């Protein structure tokens, strides 16, 4: 997993609540057995005027000019600003893979769906929860100022606006360490292999029917 320490990047506003994983990456793309290549199909149904198929070259597909990510001013955005309950729906990790492959490393929202939130951390994406009034203010600023950028500092746990305002955010200590160091969770867990084995033996003795 790529480390995440600090990022200064262009912000794209997706002004919708309850953006679900079917919208982030429609199901026909879940047939892939790979982890990469989902970026061109991120928000496929909103981004293009036709119905996308897996494996298709997307360069010449008709684009929806009204969809925010198709607007020239948001090209190259790395920070997605959105509303509450982002990522609701399925557990598909294809959703964070698509966001990452497109270039997003940070998502700012009022709230996230649990599984999606968790999946982000496993892929080096930082999901940040900010209070509703701060999200509202950011939407107003992004829309008003073309080229609007934010600086996200994970070690200091704050988002810095161009006017110098610092918005603090919470992040779980363990997840923060993993992101800052780019650690692989499996390796971390296996440091406790002896404990897992001991637990398993005890469980086998107490509830043998679970190990049939």
């Amino acid at each position, binding site marked *: 997993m790529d480390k995440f320490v600090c990022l200064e990047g262009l912000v794209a506003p997706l002004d919708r609540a*309850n953006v679900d994983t079917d919208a982030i990456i429609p199901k026909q793309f879940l047939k892939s057995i790979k982890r990469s290549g989902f970026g061109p199909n991120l928000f496929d149904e909103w981004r293009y005027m036709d119905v996308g198929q897996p494996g298709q070259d997307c360069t010449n597909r008709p684009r929806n000019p009204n969809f925010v990510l198709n607007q020239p001013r948001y090209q190259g955005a790395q920070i997605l600003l959105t509303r509450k309950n982002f990522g609701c729906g399925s557990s598909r990790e294809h959703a964070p893979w698509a966001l990452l492959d497109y270039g997003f490393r940070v998502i700012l929202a009022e709230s996230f769906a649990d599984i999606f939130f968790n999946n982000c951390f496993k892929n080096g994406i930082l999901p940040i929860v900010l209070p509703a009034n701060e999200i509202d203010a950011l939407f107003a600023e992004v829309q008003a100022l073309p080229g609007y950028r934010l600086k996200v500092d994970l070690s200091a746990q704050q988002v810095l606006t161009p006017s110098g305002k610092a918005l603090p955010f919470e992040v779980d200590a363990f997840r923060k360490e993993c992101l800052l160091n780019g650690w692989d969770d499996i390796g971390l867990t296996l440091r406790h292999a002896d404990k897992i084995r001991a637990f398993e033996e005890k469980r086998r003795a107490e509830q*043998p029917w679970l190990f049939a």
Partner: protein
Amino acid sequence: MPQNLYEKLWQSHVVHEEADGTALIYIDRHLIHEVTSPQAFEGLKLSGRKPWRVSSIVATADHNTPTNNWDRGIEDPVSRLQVETLDANIREVGSLAYFPFKDPRQGVVHVVGPEHGATLPGMTVVCGDSHTSTHGAFACLSLGIGTSEVEHVLATQCLVQKKSKTMLIRVEGRLGKGVTAKDVVLAIIGRIGTAGGTGYAVEFGGSAIRSLSMEGRMTVCNMAIEAGARMGFVAVDDVTIDYLQGRAFSPKADYWDKAVAYWRTLHSDEGARFDHVIELRAEDIRPQVTWGTSPEMVVSIDDLVPDPAKQSDPVKREGMERALQYMGLNPNTPIKGVKVDKVFIGSCTNSRIEDLRVAAHVVKGRHIAANVKQALVVPGSGLVKRQAEAEGLDKIFLAAGFEWREPGCSMCLAMNADRLEPGERCASTSNRNFEGRQGAGGRTHLVSPAMAAAAAIAGHFADVRDLL
């Protein structure tokens, strides 16, 4: 100190805990299907790791598999590759049980696990699928996980978790005629919203929940995730224990009594505390129909499609307007008269034998309306299908103009050939009505099997209570 059920389940699975509360939780059962596992097996291989305990694995192919013309195999080459990748992965690592495409026991993973007794009370159950919450009906700590976590569980038999807050949703009273588990859970989501359960482990309790069969409880827990909850569960009682007796992987004679004695402790103690409690009256719940593009956009069958003009919150208003536009509905029209093009009875929410019985009871001796282009019944598993055929339900559906299909996820998410065309409206017993869920541009209304059957007969949403 009295403990709630979640605390008991949590405590009995903690392998290791960090100072900040991040814990390693031991996983008893790992359910696997073709869509979210290939990258996990690949990751495992690339890092040179071995699976920790393959006897925890129960796998099946369900999302991509066709539901008719099985003799032709899987025609879509991309889907076929995914299913074959699962075959190869399971062949290589092994499992407790594998039900591949065409196996007589194949089916939707959340239907298959419980019917074989592979889901037992007190277990931790994970699957790379959000509707893993279904298994909570057995007082399991059941979690939908992403592919990285699938790999993590394969490699370590553990999951990294933090303790959730707890919520009790209590439904007291008696459910009216024609009101089913699906209506209960839709009413709950309508009440608390799709983010109402975020961060919570939800226990469903109260006399109305206890009155449900295991299948009804699975329907309720299945949709806990649609309320944003991390998981949902119901305490063990006689209904649970009776259901498990004699299933393939249930404890055998020598262990049965010991297991039952333990299972009987799996309930919240008298006086246990919850971070949040919500109460509903069963008598207030009427048959439900969703009108929008989120499960919380739901009304009772005798209500009107809501009017965004009456909504004061601007973000919500805009969401409602967008949903109505997508759904092709006008505010203030009675939901009852809205015509449907297709009907889908299936999915891990409502494709078990009792669901099919209820639907068959409604359609028996009747025929689907002329405007209904297609009405599908997709049993949740091969076992459900054969049980239904033994009871003659297939004949009832076929005589009424329904198609009787092979098991799988089918039109719940339309990864196979079963789908809606743009603009088509469907009465569906599945769990998600998101834009495009059942096919690009398709319009999904979530209902119970009884209500789906009623809509098929009437050609529009209808109150099933009038047909009973």
